[in-house]
């Protein structure tokens, strides 16, 4: 039993921390791609060189700590799904960073059902997807329907795009499909391993944000004085910080569990997918709400670093099914992907 990072992963972590200090915004993606970070998320078969749970978890945790908003989960899911479906060329381009793909999962009018606002007829899609991160920059879009995964070219006929800023910081879009030609990559359940890696990515990203928000809050409470004392000296608040710290460890362990069971038997893996998302989502919201409350007014302001953290935490809970969604499926003993 060994929970420490391997030497390779420690190097990857160092690389990431350096990159995230030096690069921001539009600059960051090419820097990550050049440093091989996308490749670290993918196996050799997928055009990368690692693709392990540990590599995925540590990469997204670092991105989450730094608050970088990138559709990197989409790249990972995309390259992986494309490779599995025999579209190796595009997968390789995504892996090396020369092409981007988006992942269209959420739909209007439903919480997390798939196929409510979109339907497939033959090899054409009609309907709408929403909150598609990075859609404006994508060469192709991976689309979920009720039971399948599809590939749609960004320039395909009948596809219109309406873009806007996302809560988490990047940009997203509504995609409207009108008999848009699409390639069926396979049944949703065939891509359980791929999608589970997506959940790990979002969860580790949330974990990074949880840690950052907790540290910022603790720092504030240690420094800021009220009634002549550091706020952290008020026992009622100190105990709430302690409870937050306990939950942060729960979130870390949930990510560790999924990371360690990514290649396990699907039934076991899916329980960890659900447990991970349920735990991390719950803790993300708790930390978001408690951080604002413990800060007081300043925690409500856009100027202060917490605001963006809060929104990213909420978004990470929401991506690919929130805590309630996965808890409910866990409780019913249902698979994660069906």
């Amino acid at each position: 039993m060994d929970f420490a990072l391997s030497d390779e992963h420690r190097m990857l972590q160092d690389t990431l921390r350096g990159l995230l200090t030096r690069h921001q915004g539009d600059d960051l993606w090419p820097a990550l791609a050049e440093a091989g970070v996308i490749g670290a998320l993918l196996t050799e078969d997928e055009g990368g060189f690692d693709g392990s749970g540990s590599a995925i978890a540590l990469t997204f945790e670092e991105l989450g700590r730094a608050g970088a908003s990138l559709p990197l989960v989409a790249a990972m899911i995309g390259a992986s799904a494309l490779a599995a479906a025999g579209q190796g060329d595009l997968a390789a381009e995504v892996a090396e960073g020369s092409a981007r793909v988006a992942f269209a999962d959420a739909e209007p009018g439903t919480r997390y059902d798939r196929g409510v606002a979109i339907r497939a007829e033959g090899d054409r899609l009609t309907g709408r997807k929403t909150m598609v991160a990075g859609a404006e920059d994508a060469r192709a879009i991976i689309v979920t329907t009720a039971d399948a995964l599809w590939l749609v070219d960004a320039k395909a006929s009948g596809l219109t795009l309406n873009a806007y800023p996302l809560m988490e910081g990047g940009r997203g879009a509504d995609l409207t499909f009108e008999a848009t030609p699409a390639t069926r990559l396979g049944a949703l359940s065939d891509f359980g391993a791929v999608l589970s890696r997506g959940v790990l990515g979002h969860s580790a990203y949330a974990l990074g944000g949880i840690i950052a928000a907790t540290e910022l809050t603790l720092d504030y409470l240690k420094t800021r004085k009220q009634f002549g004392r550091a706020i952290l000296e008020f026992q009622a608040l100190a105990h709430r910080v302690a409870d937050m710290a306990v939950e942060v460890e729960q979130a870390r362990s949930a990510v560790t569990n999924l990371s360690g069971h990514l290649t396990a038997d699907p039934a076991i893996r899916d329980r960890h997918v659900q447990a991970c998302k349920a735990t991390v989502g719950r803790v993300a919201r708790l930390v978001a709400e408690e951080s604002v409350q413990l800060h007081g007014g300043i925690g409500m302001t856009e100027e202060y670093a917490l605001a963006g953290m809060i929104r990213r935490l909420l978004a990470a809970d929401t991506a690919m099914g929130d805590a309630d969604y996965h808890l409910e499926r866990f409780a019913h003993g249902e698979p994660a992907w069906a």
Partner: protein
Amino acid sequence: MDMRFTPDEQAFAAEVRDFLQAELDPALAEKNRLHKPLTKAEMEGWHAKLNAKGWLAGNWPREFGGAGWTAIQRHIYEEESAKAHAPRIVPFGIAMLGPVLQKFGSKEQQDYWLPRILNGDDWWCQGYSEPGAGSDLAGLRCRAERQGDHYVVNGQKTWTTLGQHANMIFCLVRTSTEGKKQEGISFLLIDMETPGVSVRPIVLLDGTAEVNEVFFDDVKVPVENLVGTENEGWTYAKYLLTHERTNIAGVGFATAALDNLKRVAKAQIHRGKPLDQDPLFAAQIATTEIELMAMSTTNLRMLSAAAQGQAPGVESSMLKIKGTQIRQQLDALTRRAYGGWAQALPMETGNQGQPLDADDVLSATAGYLNNRKLSIYGGSNEIQRGIIAGTLAKG
């Protein structure tokens, strides 16, 4: 025991509903329902309609031009107008400054300022909090130095809600540093067009810009704008805070939010069925509705006790805590009802596109984020817990 409103009160409720039906522009109600910021003109227009009806200052005695409503009538008005999504009456002049002037102001101050409040000649804002004095309000440092027939004010106020619209601000300022920190505070009325006053908006995490910082740099304020006695302002400040706490439970807002949540849960699909048929989500709605049923009666019990002359105790602190818990829970559920659809936010600053058909979704996210303030401002819930525990310790 009789839980019903009296026939008079029921008639009054009907009159309020009729008024709202006749006077409230549905477009304005819809905008308000969606948590969209109202313009200054929209708020002033609503005030003018209420003033024409004689209802703008429900809490003021008739001698000052108020409606002289009982606590129950005020409650009924607030409930009905929240349920109809009518704009909230901007509280700074009507609910806060008015009662202070009526109790502690000079005859001249009353005669001059009170009619101007009713007529909308002034837009008041509140200068209480400072960057270093939030929950610890008495720790304020904004200085006012007497120089001849003026005070010269230097310092900063913050969390000044709707200050961007205001031409007047009532401020707590420090006129003495001797004695306890509660001593040496004075209550000043400051014209915001005086040289040296500047206002800077604070954007909140939901993207709105409804609060501000106000800076004072050698601002000259005539001494006749002092309310009451110099260094006695803490007394007036506390008096004002008890008035700020009217409608602290927010039952009407919660009722409107619950109705909205049920509407959303009926429309959103979950596991192939309307979300309100999902046992887990239905139980979460039910839990909150049951809490609201109880709090609503707690609120009435306390109003009724107050109407019978019982001295208020920690009731307002209890209602503040439970009221904000319920409203924040309703906001959280409404946002969560939208699931993966609720990942965008209507930032006021820089419009770079909006999702399609998503006004309600955006308002749910913004409402959730914005209402995190409920448990922070007006005395945070932690401060309220301290008040309750302190009272219990003495009892």
